[in-house]
């Protein structure tokens, strides 16, 4: 489970449409919106990859100018990073095995 906090920005006059469109997205929960066009949103997703996908969808909403992240919690994933399960799939220059850089 990954949870992110966001301030989404839209033009003040677009607030109502932006709120409607954002609320329709799965995983997005809105906590408030003000007259300057600031919208407080929380996104919950299974993984940080999924969170990224939701952010992309938010960015694509017509009335949205900017999606600003302010908070991220991903305690389940922290373990995966440490164990190497969350390492990106890349091509390695020396084709070295993991561990060749670590103490024997």
């Amino acid at each position: 489970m990954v949870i992110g906090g966001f301030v989404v920005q839209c033009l003040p006059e677009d607030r109502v449409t932006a709120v409607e469109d954002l609320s329709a997205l799965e995983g997005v929960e809105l906590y408030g919106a003000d007259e300057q066009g600031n919208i407080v949103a929380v996104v919950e997703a299974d993984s940080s990859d999924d969170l990224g996908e939701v952010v992309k969808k938010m960015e694509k909403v017509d009335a949205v100018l900017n999606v600003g992240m302010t908070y991220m919690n991903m305690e389940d994933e922290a373990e995966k990073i440490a164990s190497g399960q969350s390492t990106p799939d890349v091509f390695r220059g020396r084709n070295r095995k993991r561990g060749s850089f670590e103490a024997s």
Partner: protein
Amino acid sequence: MVQSRREFLKRTAALSAASYVGMNLPFSGEDLAMAATETVWHRGSCRLCGVGCRVELGVKNGTPVALRGVSQSRTNFGYLCMKGMHFWKVMNHAERLTTPLYRAKKRDKFQPISWDKALDIAAEKFASAVKEHGNDSVAYYGSGQALTEETYFFQKLFRGGLQTNNVEGNPRLCMASAVGGYLTSFGADEPIGGYADIEKAHCFFIIGSNMAEAHPVIFRRVMRRKLDNPNVTVINADPRISLTSRIADIHLQFHPGTDLALLNSMAHVIVKEKLYDKQFLADYTVCKNGKKETVDFAEYEKFLAEYTPEMAAKTMGGKVTPDQIREVARKFATSKGTLSFWTMGLNQRKQGVWANNLVHNLHILTGQLLKEGADSLSLTGQPNACGGVREGGGLCHILPGHRLVEKEPLRNQVEEAWGVPKGRIPPKPGYHTMAMFTALNEKKIKAMWINCTSPVQSLPNCNLYNKGMAQDDTFIVCTDIFPTLTTELAANLILPTAFHFEKTGVYGCTERRSQITRKAIDPPKGAKPEVWIIREWGKMLAAKLKDPVIAQCIKPFEGLEEGYALPKAIWDEYSQKLTKGRDNDLRGATYEVLEQMYDGVQWPAPTKEFALTGGTVKKFVRGMDPMADSHGKNDKPYQFYGPAHPDNKLWVWLRPQADPEEIPDAEYPFYLSTGRIIDHWHTMSMTGRVKELLRANPYSYIEVNPTDAKRMGIKPGDMVEITSRRGTNVMPAKVYEGPIEGMVFAYWHDQHPDRMINKVTKDAYDPGSKEPEFKICACKIKRVSGPKALKPYIV
């Protein structure tokens, strides 16, 4: 009330976001009772860019699990960009280096060795180089990402201990021209104002900077200002239309390298239409045509005569109209506060210092300086280029506290502070970066320490210098947290270091602001903070060279615990002894004070009381800057006490339009420029290991203007070969109305040998600042095939 953990986290997330925009939610932080027992929050700075955003790292059971912005911080008010939000994921990464690795020859395989053995080898190699080849056969090459304590301590040991000024760092590649510009125009390095001017500005002049991607959180503030006040004007001047241009009212697009004509032409309009501030000019300025040659204003006017808007528009390539130049000049001069921003587009140029001077000229002429909302503000690339390297003595010609190496009384002050004999620091500046790597090619450097940077990828025309680094004639130590192309190609010895939040120290960002990050978790077993490494290495060096002065350099730090007490003692020495009375006086910014502040202290801050107010928001202004009062020469409101201008004046420079080193010709018909992308940091050794960031931009591509693409038969995604007189790359094309016709643009992060654009860039450099011209060279392009499936590449 019973809350599920999930609900609790969501509410925490909502509260954090709401606090940034001052929104009230129907629940408060106190309701979230679980907070205290679970996650412990540690305040510090973001590790990545020069904006200096303040963050809090959430640690649970010794493991980092969350990050949030600090809403009380005057740098970011809580906002973070995506890469900042993710930087902490490298901390517990499985690929962290955790043991010293050694190989005698650079073609050998690395073998793990103990710390004792590693430090002994490092000491032996440096000691024997000094004994056999002299003091200048050793060198340090550091980073604008090292903590101030680290840069300061390294340079102390090299200058005071090993008696060489071969102390350099990668800020030479990004900030040196800005330093040169500030010193020659204002008499003192670093900006007069800061970010606080954004919310007061009425006109933004953004030139040679894609701040939307390179400084996203500052850009957000500019955008907010513009959205809240539609009358605010944003002018963007750049050969490439970028994400930054989105908020621009006027975009001036021109051929790379012709902006000196633009800036002079704006001055031409300002002078011709008498939009300058006559009283300000009379009180505070002189005109200069060379350091020693002062000329009068009429002479300056004569110099500007040829830069008519018509002439400039033509020089710039014809996309800008003379009337646009007039309009921009008028807006710049007459707004209630004009704030300029630039970065590498001006700095990484053969005329880098001149370009900086010409922006400063516009501010000086119009008096758009020293008042609210007005400043000439160079954005820094790295988080501690200003603090550690510019202020802490990290370049070959400067000692800590903005002191020039070549001035004997200043050297003596440093020697006295260190308790080393007078004359210990050599009088000659060391090699600047390009000279240092040239010396390596010529086998003049026998032992080199590379800290926290990867020159194999980041030097211009890197093929040439990589030959020298790969030779076995120079023993190279690298201190880093991950393998890089430099550890792979060049290192004999790799020493694994502690990362941000695994050690304590200070970063100084763009706006003269020093901010502390305290150790929050232990480094991975086997990794050590640099300050410990330097001290232990220094002890062995002293023994091997039988030199009590080297021992003296580390004596004040003997026996101190490395996570906090050691860096604190180093900071105390630096701030109390070396910045005392200097223009970057940091005596008030003790650890104790810095730890109390959400966002640190802006220098000068000579006393604790003053530092606790946040320090100096505007330099040189009586009543705001304590040094303007203590160093004032008369009763005028502005006092330019900077060390480089004995006349205490601002200097308006006569700097002509001049071509870049290489311009397109029949054989190499395109301009090539390079830059950053939002998701990645420098050579990607960190951001390439965070999957969210890597996936967002897995490899570099070349941006080609649609008109050029059509002419060359290039379609989106096609593989394109980019060749200069120095090297070749092959990467996918992005056909995009970004670069001006006749220009292509590539990102420089990619580590893959085919896509390492610095093989293609040019190593000509500014004669004053010695900063290379990464931003402009000539190349040819050719479609080689249709789209190909590529895999990202991290060494």
